[in-house]
């Protein structure tokens, strides 16, 4: 199963890249110009996203580097202990929604110190793989169209993250413990 998926994901991009222009050429599209027009649209999008991304990353970086995050996590530690969660897992859960690279670094460190096939190593990997960075996606997607009022987007995004983490913990406990 995973071999098929791996092959599929390796082939998807090359096939796509070749097939799209050839098909367009057969349909009489001015291929090179249309391609460059599309790329130019991408450039405008990037310019539109940057301010939003900058604002969010500055706040997250200040929150994280100042030690405020560690302080907040320390408050949550007793709750963690009550549910039998390993201590290193909570920072990963919080980081996962905030910063993609931060979560990956934390996850890598957990796996390195505890081993990839330890319970906590498997749990960290499952959590890392089961959601994406909600703050990043929110910032980039809404920033690209200039939406300022997000309504309940952040709430449902974080709720989905929380549910995914809970499911990961439940499944890992069920299978690996």
């Amino acid at each position: 199963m995973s071999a098929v998926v791996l092959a599929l994901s390796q082939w998807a991009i090359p096939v796509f890249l070749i097939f799209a222009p050839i098909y367009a050429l057969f349909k009489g599209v001015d291929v090179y110009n249309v391609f460059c027009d599309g790329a130019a649209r991408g450039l405008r999008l990037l310019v539109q996203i940057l301010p939003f991304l900058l604002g969010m990353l500055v706040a997250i970086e200040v929150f994280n580097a100042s030690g405020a995050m560690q302080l907040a996590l320390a408050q949550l530690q007793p709750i963690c202990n009550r549910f039998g969660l390993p201590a290193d897992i909570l920072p990963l859960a919080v980081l996962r929604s905030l910063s993609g690279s931060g979560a990956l670094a934390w996850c890598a460190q957990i796996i390195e110190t505890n081993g990839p096939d330890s319970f906590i190593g498997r749990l960290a990997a499952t959590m890392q793989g089961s959601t994406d960075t909600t703050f990043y996606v929110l910032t980039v997607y809404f920033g690209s169209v200039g939406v300022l009022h997000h309504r309940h987007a952040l709430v449902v995004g974080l709720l989905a993250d929380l549910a995914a983490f809970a499911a990961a913990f439940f499944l890992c406990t069920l299978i690996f413990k």
Partner: protein
Amino acid sequence: MVNIIWLLLLLAGFAAAAWQGNIGMVTQAAFAGAAKSVDLIVSLAGVLMLWLGVLALMEASGLLQKLAGLLSPLLRHLFPELPADSPAFSGIVLNFCANLLGLGNAATPFGLQAMQELQQLNPKPDTASDSMITLLLLNTSAITLLPTTVIALRSSAGSANPTEILLLCILSSAFGLLVGLVAHAVLRRR
């Protein structure tokens, strides 16, 4: 909501640094964050432009519309407020497929393309529409058949079976998405 969280993050960071007597940390972190955002945009730029170029070709040749027609019955139920022939579906379909294959970098341009189409239908352009939030959920819950980064991480750490967590990831994401969609369905009526 985002206003409050943004200010709260900054304020908490400021307070924590001041309390530790190391206020210089705030300056450093703020500059580092600012630089990081530009790095991120630059690293995203090439791939994004490439894919939007390819996407423009698919759009002009009618391939995109065909693909969307083929696959959108699956996703249509998630976007009941969109007209069945909405051009947003092609972007949504491609975004979903790229995510499924674990091609996160390729998924973003398609998602942003769909976002632009959704914005055209949005009665209040400065406020997120219901479909936008659904699309967002599809992306943050990241249902993927192949979480490539994590598997690479596990195999480089010498795991006996790096892909054994695959099914767990899929199930956890699916549950997360389900909970998110239910919450969205409840909150959208307000």
